[in-house]
């Protein structure tokens, strides 16, 4: 199929149409089965996926990198000298991202059909609204990837912020969900504002926000020196907010308050991917200079390690996954920072698949447990891993797919995660060999790799291995064990997406050779036609010699296996006990998440409250006082002028008013004679006028 603008427009707008149909029609005027809403949304994502499959994927290996840049881009906003042009662009990066986004979103939509049916034993009241938001989210992400300019990219970016707010706060009766939604919105907003400043700098110096023109502008030196660094840092700040990098990562774990498919959507295909995508794009067009890149690399590397260490002690299954997302995003930023955006995007893709699989798998578990607990009237937390255990036999399909995804995220060979993580680590190792003073970057990456394997297998062992409810605490522990024995595998609507996503977590789709990047590296690192030649230099280093690859492989696999082994000794075979560690100071620091949440609460939230209280008091005392005082003054002044104004009022003003009234009454008395109330009298006047008119006209034309 030809790759045309029409096709891209359908891909882009189908989810938006689905959203509009749902929000405006379904449930209000269209009274059909509740599934109707889901079908609309499935079509809204399914159609784009199908079109991408037949229209974009066949063009993957075509030599021309830019497939469609509109000849006459839409002149969208035209304000005199300010004119923004927008268009759609498909290059190699976009092609693979589109495939990933539409497929993962489709799987998440399918999964939600079953998952969202029930809330606390009742049919979900806002079923179609949920799907409407999912569709809007998908639209925003597709808009972001297809944009050829930073303006519509920013619009998609902000739309995603809105959708994340709506979806995280979907269970809005819960206070914690409300708080999490507001936290996500505000925290990412910090980054967004900085991003907007960055865009303004780019606009002011280059004079355009279209990516090809920005790339040319940077090449021509329209923006350079510290201004370039400043713009790069501002733009990166946006990515830090969206991709939940240190220090703006705190919203992502709290975002777990949303329904699990939302977590999968935010963590895999859309929201957090946007930040990495932006960073990779900025690297491509050259807005990240050496200084910015160093910051990017350190923030990314540090985040990878930092988040992995917090994940070690979490007990909520979704929170472990959330911190692992933060950590994996740190990897991607690290790859961007060392100039290896191919690896960053590769990991973005594979991570989207296996993280979506992990989240949906945990969703499947939570769903099953929720149902079982509900049947037994238990109030146990269906997300707490201590209430799980031994689910391997009860939910074999979920377990199998979950295990594949876990192997992938841990970087065990024969998985997609191994390929992409290896590429990142090799890139950072090569960078360190060139710049020995930045040794820490590689160290961050490798230690985080071992930690990842450890906490992910801890999760698997706690959830799926051992005896059911073996770690359950509290008075309901026995009842929990009884309920766990009745847990059933989820229906095919939920397991099919898991299987599809697990397939993409294997190596085979990405590369026939299980130990080297396959076609994907070729596609991603291929010259993008719209970029100036020199821009590809950044890509040149970041690969390093072949021996680096070998060493990376040995090291990363060794560390990952070490992590698995330690986790097995702790939690599977129980050779070692975690008690001493759990009582130590370090564990407490980790459980407090290094105190950052508390710090933000203390520094920003409480002060904001204090500020609003203070301004409330200011309002009450100073401003209200001033207004009342003014009123008092006016009242006093009025009394002294009463007699003057009274006289003027009576004689001049009243006289004029009465005079006008008298005049009008006389006029009315005359005119009322005409209004007889006899219709035929009026008609007689009308026809007389007509006859007169006829005479006049015929006289004029004689």
């Amino acid at each position, binding site marked *: 199929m030809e790759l045309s603008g029409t096709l891209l427009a359908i891909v882009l707008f189908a989810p938006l149409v689905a959203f509009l149909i749902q929000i405006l029609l379904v449930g209000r005027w269209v009274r059909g089965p509740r599934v109707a809403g889901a079908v609309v949304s499935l079509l809204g994502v399914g159609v784009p996926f199908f079109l991408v499959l037949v229209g974009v994927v066949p063009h993957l290996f075509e030599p021309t990198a830019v497939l469609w840049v509109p000849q006459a881009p839409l002149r969208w906003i035209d304000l005199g000298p300010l004119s923004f042009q927008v268009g759609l662009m498909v290059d190699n990066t976009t092609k693979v991202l589109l495939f990933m986004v539409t497929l993962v979103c489709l799987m998440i939509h399918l999964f939600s059909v079953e998952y969202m049916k029930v809330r606390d034993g009742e049919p979900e009241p806002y079923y179609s609204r949920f799907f409407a938001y999912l569709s809007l989210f998908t639209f925003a992400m597709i808009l972001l990837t297809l944009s050829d300019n930073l303006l519509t990219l920013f619009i998609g970016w902000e739309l995603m912020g809105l959708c994340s707010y709506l979806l995280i706060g979907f269970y809005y009766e819960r206070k914690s969900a409300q708080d999490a939604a507001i936290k996500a919105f505000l925290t990412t907003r910090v980054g967004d504002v900085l991003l907007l400043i960055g865009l303004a700098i780019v606009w002011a110096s280059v004079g355009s926000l279209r990516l090809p023109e920005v790339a040319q502008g940077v090449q021509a030196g329209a923006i350079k020196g510290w201004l370039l660094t400043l713009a790069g840092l501002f733009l990166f700040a946006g990515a830090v907010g969206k991709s939940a990098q240190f220090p703006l990562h705190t919203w992502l774990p709290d975002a777990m308050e949303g329904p699990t498919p939302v977590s999968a959507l935010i963590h895999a295909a859309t929201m957090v991917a946007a930040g990495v995508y932006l960073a990779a794009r900025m690297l491509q067009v050259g807005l990240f200079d050496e200084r910015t890149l160093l910051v990017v690399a350190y923030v990314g590397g540090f985040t990878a390690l930092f988040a992995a260490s917090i994940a070690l002690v979490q007990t909520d299954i979704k929170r472990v996954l959330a911190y692992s997302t933060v950590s994996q995003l740190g990897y991607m930023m690290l790859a961007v920072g060392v100039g290896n955006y191919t690896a960053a995007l590769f990991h973005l893709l594979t991570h989207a698949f296996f993280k979506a699989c992990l989240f949906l798998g945990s969703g499947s578990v939570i769903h099953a447990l929720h149902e079982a607990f509900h049947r037994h009237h238990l109030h146990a937390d269906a997300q707490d891993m201590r209430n799980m255990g031994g689910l391997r036999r009860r939910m074999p399909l979920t377990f199998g797919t979950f295990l594949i995804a876990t192997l992938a995220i841990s970087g065990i060979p024969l998985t997609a995660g191994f390929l992409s993580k290896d590429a990142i680590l090799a890139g950072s190792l090569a960078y360190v060999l060139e710049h020995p003073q930045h040794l820490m970057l590689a160290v961050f990456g490798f230690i985080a790799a071992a930690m990842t394997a450890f906490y992910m297998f801890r999760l698997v062992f706690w959830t799926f291995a051992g005896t059911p409810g073996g770690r359950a605490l509290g008075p309901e522990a026995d009842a929990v064990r009884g309920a766990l024995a009745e847990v059933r595998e989820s229906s095919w609507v939920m397991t099919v997406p898991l299987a599809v996503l697990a397939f993409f977590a294997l190596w085979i789709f990405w590369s026939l050779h299980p130990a080297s990047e396959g076609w994907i590296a070729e596609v991603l690192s291929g010259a993008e036609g719209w970029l100036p030649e020199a821009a590809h230099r950044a890509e040149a280093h970041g690969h390093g010699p072949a021996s680096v690859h070998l060493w990376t492989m040995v090291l990363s696999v060794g560390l990952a296996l070490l992590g698995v082994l330690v986790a097995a000794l702790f939690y599977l075979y129980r050779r070692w006990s975690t008690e001493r560690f759990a009582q130590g100071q370090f564990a407490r620091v980790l459980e407090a998440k290094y105190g950052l949440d508390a710090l933000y609460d203390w520094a920003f939230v409480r002060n904001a409250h204090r500020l609003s209280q203070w301004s409330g008091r200011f309002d009450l005392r100073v401003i209200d006082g001033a207004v009342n005082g003014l009123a008092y003054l006016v009242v006093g002044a009025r009394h002294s002028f009463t007699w003057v104004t009274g006289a003027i009022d009576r004689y001049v003003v009243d006289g004029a008013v009465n005079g006008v009234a008298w005049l009008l009454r006389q006029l009315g008395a005359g*005119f009322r004679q*005409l*209004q*007889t*109330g*006899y*219709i*035929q009298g009026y008609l007689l006047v009308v*026809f007389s006028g007509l006859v007169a008119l006829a005479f006049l006209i015929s006289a004029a034309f004689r």
Partner: protein
Amino acid sequence: MITLTHYLAVSSLLFVFGMFAVLTRRNAIAMLMGVELILNAANLNFVAFSKYVLGGVLGQVVGLFVIVLAAAEAAIALAIILDIYQELATINPDETTELKG
């Protein structure tokens, strides 16, 4: 040979009859009939001028519009008359002078 003048003569007659009915009848419905005659007089003019002067079908099209309009007008006017009858128990235009100034 029928010429334009013949048509105009007929339509003028129709118009005058209609006008007469509207001005003199003591029944609102009969007045309405007069209005219909006037409209049809105008229709006849449209068609005739279209045939003899303009050519084409513009006049006929306008004629069709007028017919539709007349239908709508009759519906509304009858509804109004019905309402007046319910309110005042008469449809004699001489007795419905509520709006006298």
